[in-house]
């Protein structure tokens, strides 16, 4: 019997080794730079606090697992039937009030400790007062893209949120007001903070104060329809100078370039403008993203692909190539119109 057990344990260990090797192979040969949104690489106070709290909880639950799991392993080994022919019954024990009390009180004590620690953290993060130096951004979730409004600057950014670095000495956190234009979405950038849902008819809020510059990825975390998976999200944490320059650019009206007038004509006559805004032109649609500074963004279609001319043209020709079921219709433009409108949009820096 024991030999059989050992064989099984050995077999499963072998299995695990194979899988581990497979995994190492994958990580070693993975192509391209990785940007993993791990909750264990925090870059902002809420994410850092959660990280610390999680280590505390992991320690307690880990200790419980080792203790109880250890007892179980001991019981399985020590009290297994030895020999098929041993059919005498063991001593019957029906219970013990003292033992029951002991293993009721210990979990109660653990719950008290965990609850108090957790409650403290809830209040610290959720009820943190907003400093005067904070930046306000209104986030509006749409079926499958993000709108970021900066009321102080009059900016409408899309899919790529720019926020200033927050120096712990003189913090400039960003406070997000979360709304939805249609169904429930959820704003989640794991390295910056936990997620908060965006509900229609309801205002939620959250805050971040990133301590390191860089780009942080995230995505919608509440199933919101066909293309929920490609409602990706990027947060760019800029130095104050970079942020200021970005704001200045975003505040400009759209670039006017006579050489692409034909493309602009296509845009304004082929119902593109029913859904999109380009500041300073006749296009004032609100259903789709603002395209005034389209080329200042790194990605298209809420992170579905890189923003370059080829992708942009294909996206306009047939949105389903990149994002099947997205709400942007294919407008049946001919090749010439496609070239023209792509050339026009490519000037919108």
């Amino acid at each position: 019997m024991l030999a059989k057990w050992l064989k099984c344990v050995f077999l499963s260990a072998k299995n695990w080794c194979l899988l581990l090797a497979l995994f190492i192979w994958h990580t070693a040969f993975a192509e391209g730079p990785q940007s993993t949104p791990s909750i264990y690489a925090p870059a902002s106070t809420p994410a850092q606090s959660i990280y610390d709290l999680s280590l505390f909880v992991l320690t307690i639950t880990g200790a419980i697992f080792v203790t109880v799991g250890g007892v179980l392993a001991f019981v399985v080994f020590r009290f297994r039937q030895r020999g098929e022919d041993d059919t005498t019954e063991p001593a019957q024990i029906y219970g013990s009030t003292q033992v029951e009390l002991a293993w009721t009180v210990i979990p109660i004590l653990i719950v008290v400790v965990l609850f108090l620690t957790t409650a403290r953290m809830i209040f610290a993060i959720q009820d943190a007062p907003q400093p005067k130096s904070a930046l306000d951004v209104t986030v509006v979730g749409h079926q499958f893209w993000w709108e970021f409004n900066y009321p102080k600057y009059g900016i409408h950014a899309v899919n790529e949120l720019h926020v200033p670095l927050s120096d712990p000495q003189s913090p400039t956190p960003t406070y997000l007001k979360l709304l939805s234009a249609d169904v429930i979405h959820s704003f989640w950038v794991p390295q910056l903070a936990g997620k908060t849902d965006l509900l229609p008819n309801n205002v939620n809020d959250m805050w971040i104060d990133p301590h390191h510059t860089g780009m942080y990825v995230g995505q919608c975390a509440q199933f919101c329809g066909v293309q929920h998976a490609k409602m990706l999200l990027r947060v760019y944490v800029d130095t104050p100078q970079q942020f200021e320059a970005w704001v200045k650019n975003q505040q400009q009206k759209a670039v006017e370039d006579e050489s692409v007038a034909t493309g602009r004509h296509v845009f304004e006559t082929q119902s593109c403008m029913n859904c999109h805004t380009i500041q300073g032109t006749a296009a004032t649609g609100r259903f789709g993203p603002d395209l005034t500074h389209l080329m200042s963004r790194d990605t298209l279609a809420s992170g579905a692909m890189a923003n370059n001319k080829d992708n942009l043209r294909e996206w306009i020709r047939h949105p389903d190539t990149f994002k099947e079921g997205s709400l942007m219709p294919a407008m049946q433009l001919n090749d010439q119109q496609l070239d023209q409108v792509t050339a026009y949009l490519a000037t919108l820096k």
Partner: protein
Amino acid sequence: MADSTYPIPGSVEAPHRWSQAAVLEWLNSWVITVDHKKLGILYMLYAVFFLLVGGAEAIAIRIQLLYPHMHFMSPQVFNRIFTMHGNTMVFLFGMTYIFGFANYLVPLMVGARDMAFPRLNAFSFWLTFFGGLLLYYSFIGGGGLYGAGNAPDVMWWAYAPLTERAFSPGHAPDYWALSLIVTGFGTIGASINVIATAFCMRCKGMTLMRLPVFVWVNATASGLALITITPLTAAQVMLLIDRYLGGHFFDTQAGGSAMIWAHFFWIFGHPEVYVLVLPAFAIANEVIPVFSRKAIFGYPAVVAASVGIAFVSLGVWAHHMFTIGMTSVGNAFFVLSTMLVGIPTSIKIFNWLGTMWGGKIRFATPMLFCTAFVVQFLLAGLTGIMLSVAPWNWQLHNSYFVIAHFHYVLVGAIAFCVFAGIYYWYPKVTGRMLSEKLGKWHFWLFFIGFHVTFDVMHIPGLLGMPRSIYTYEADRGWTGWNQIVSIGGLIQGIAVLIFAVNLIWSYFKGKEAGNDPWDAWTLEWATPSPPPAYNFATDPVVTSRRPLWDIKHPDDPDWKYE
């Protein structure tokens, strides 16, 4: 081994075998039956069938997630498949296996000749049956937005306003709501029946404190089902009113509330988890003592903890909503109530350990499944504690960590106990043992596959991978983890196929079981295998919690110690 022929005096003879009846008459007898044992078998066949269907859907999901930007399915189909996987496993497998076991075993265990309301019993099963058919008819029925059927594609919790007509113009939410209203009524009927049978049909001497723990826990789960199905049905009716009669309960474009739906759903949805898992505990409560050769440790504490879990579970629903924007005080309240669930559950785990302690544990297949269940349920509880820590939940919610956690409950606890229960009671139901050899293969493959899949699945969640996405980006560092998870899923699939083969093969070729193959102690083992119609010719009389122990050990009966 003790002599295993201890029929209660006056048991009727075993009926003639099915093969002797004409096929049509035989089929007819299954359709018109009001016999609790036949209905129990029907429930179990239905549950196992949908376990296989839901499992196939899971495999399809795992194939789609093997590589970033994989195109095994379109996003539309993927969304339907994962929604149906959830609905199938919760409503068509989960909610039916519990009544399979309860129907077959509760009357036998309390020494009754049938359920309290045999006709209601049949009616409830057929409601559930046709509700399930209606849900699956959605794949072929109706034109739908994409012309490819109308299977629900709004997740199993069907959050409003995505289900409103503005965002779901086809009939997907209609199929979801209507079919689950129908199965819901089936559940209510079956629950009333289990409660009435457990409390009103007990044989002489079967006081409440002598009721087998299995019966206690099933009655508790049924009571909980009665309470929780109601808000779900109400919400589904409101949704249909919104969609077809111009109501605005959840229609946010006309001032409705998306949050109210979430409250309605989760006040059903969380206790529902306990409706599903308590009957699994019930199975473990029978299997662990018998294979440890000891009485259950701390019977009153086990019963009290089970009922306690049911009570506390009614006050924890909003821990599914920590990210929806409740106040800090609201969040703190639900942190506390959720953590409180940990107390009765840990009492249960400790009592199982106490039962095994000092025993002579026989590791036959049912006990292997139950031992693995105890470890896995412990781990599921601990990840549950992690999720109850609201700030950490803000990170983990709707990530693959949550998926791993609740599959630890639904597979690691429930499916393992269901397998244990089937290996344990199959001899009683069919008169033949399931093959131990295939059983061991089934167990070890399933155990390994389970851990490859669901241990690893926690990791992409910690790395920021949200649930219900049909594809993911290549640069996220999730690819390798997803592939390991998929491989584990395949191993589990093979194990379940071995199980299906075992069920069929053993039915014809299995070893004859006899009345009492496990040398067990509850009343069902006092009847022939399979038990005759109406179970007992004369009402049995019991004097303790383990009537058969008393008969087998007249020198050391239980009633002396109660």
